């Protein structure tokens, strides 16, 4: 366990700010244990650096090829979309544009032309609004009543036509019935007259 005012490893790894480094150095000068610990860390680092960096066996390089290079427009677009701030701005702009587009192209609700009168462009007073509403209601009621009266008239005419036809049918049937009765009466009369004619020869035969 180190008695240094700050972590010796942090000092050794160059993570301490300057004022604290100075304090550690002052402490190490007077503390054999911490000095020894620091020396061991330095020996470890020196041992680690015995492993040298190697040269890369093959240099890396990229070749510019116009076929595979994106066009300036695509590069700009890619850069634009790649940026968070710009993406946020673009999103806000698209949202605004879509709101304006929706507001401009949304179809207005179709007014009921029979019941609603055109409203003046100037904002009317509450009394005028009330009057217009009453007027509109009265017009609507009158239109409904007129429509209903017309319907009733049509129904009456229909039933009258129906009753006329029924009456004609009844009259025709009565005429037919009357004619049948007459025919039946004639038949009966003839039937009564026939037996009289037939009885005379018989009576004549009986007389022989």
């Amino acid at each position, binding site marked *: 366990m180190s008695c240094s005012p700050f972590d010796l490893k942090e000092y050794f790894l160059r993570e301490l700010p300057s004022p604290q480094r100075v304090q550690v150095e002052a402490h190490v000068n007077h503390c054999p244990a911490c000095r020894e610990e620091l020396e*061991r860390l330095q020996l470890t680092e020196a041992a680690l650096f015995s492993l040298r960096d190697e040269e890369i066996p093959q240099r890396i390089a*990229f070749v510019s090829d116009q076929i595979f290079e994106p066009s300036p427009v695509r590069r700009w677009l*890619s850069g634009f979309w790649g940026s968070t701030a710009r993406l946020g701005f673009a999103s806000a702009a698209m949202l605004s544009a879509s709101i304006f587009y929706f507001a401009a192209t949304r179809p207005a609700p179709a007014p009921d032309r029979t019941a609603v009168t055109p409203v003046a462009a100037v904002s009317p007073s509450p009394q005028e609004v009330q009057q217009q509403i009453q007027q509109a209601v009265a017009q609507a009621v009158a239109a409904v009543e007129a429509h209903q009266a017309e319907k009733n008239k049509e129904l009456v005419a229909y039933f009258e036509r129906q009753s006329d036809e029924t009456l004609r049918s009844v009259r025709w049937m009565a005429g037919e019935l009357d004619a049948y009765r007459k025919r039946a009466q004639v038949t009966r009369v003839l039937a009564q007259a026939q037996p009289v004619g037939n009885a005379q020869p018989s009576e004549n035969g009986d007389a022989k």
Partner: protein
Amino acid sequence: MIFRAVEDADLIRQATRGNVESFNLLVSRWEKRVYNYLLRITANREDALDLTQDAFLKAYQNLRKLDDPGRFAPWLYRIAHNEAYSMFRKRKPETDVDEIEPGATETQVTVGGSSVFPIELSLAVASALDRLSVDQREAIVLKVYQGFKFEEMAEILSCPVSTIKSRVYTALELLKIELAPMKARGLS
């Protein structure tokens, strides 16, 4: 260092406008470091080279998504890290990535070029690194060899800084126990 960062930022801006040569210049500055990072976590030269190429290709394709050109290094290493772990998963899909020990199946990393240090020490270092878990080894590679800050490592590895510190400190403790005495003997 700041001047270099500005230059990198300029190259990135030019590369995003389609200038391939600017990106090639950027690659030439970073390829050795990225290759060695991948070499130390895969322990295989062919894999490291393939992954380096894939990482730079992905970086080129996604360069426009890099909002802050000043964060190019952690962003590039993040891509390289993802490529390496993707390869680990493909090779051992049913094994937890932490259990994968690249050094166990591949030849161990050897010393590159001439060294003033004894060859035994280099082999001992390679062996000690191999005995660390994948996470600990990667943490040591990023911190000691690549010189990243804890915050940058947290960005590369998608971990909290506390986790990164824990991995580095534990790995450093293990390496210290094994390597410090050997190095002391070598110096004496």
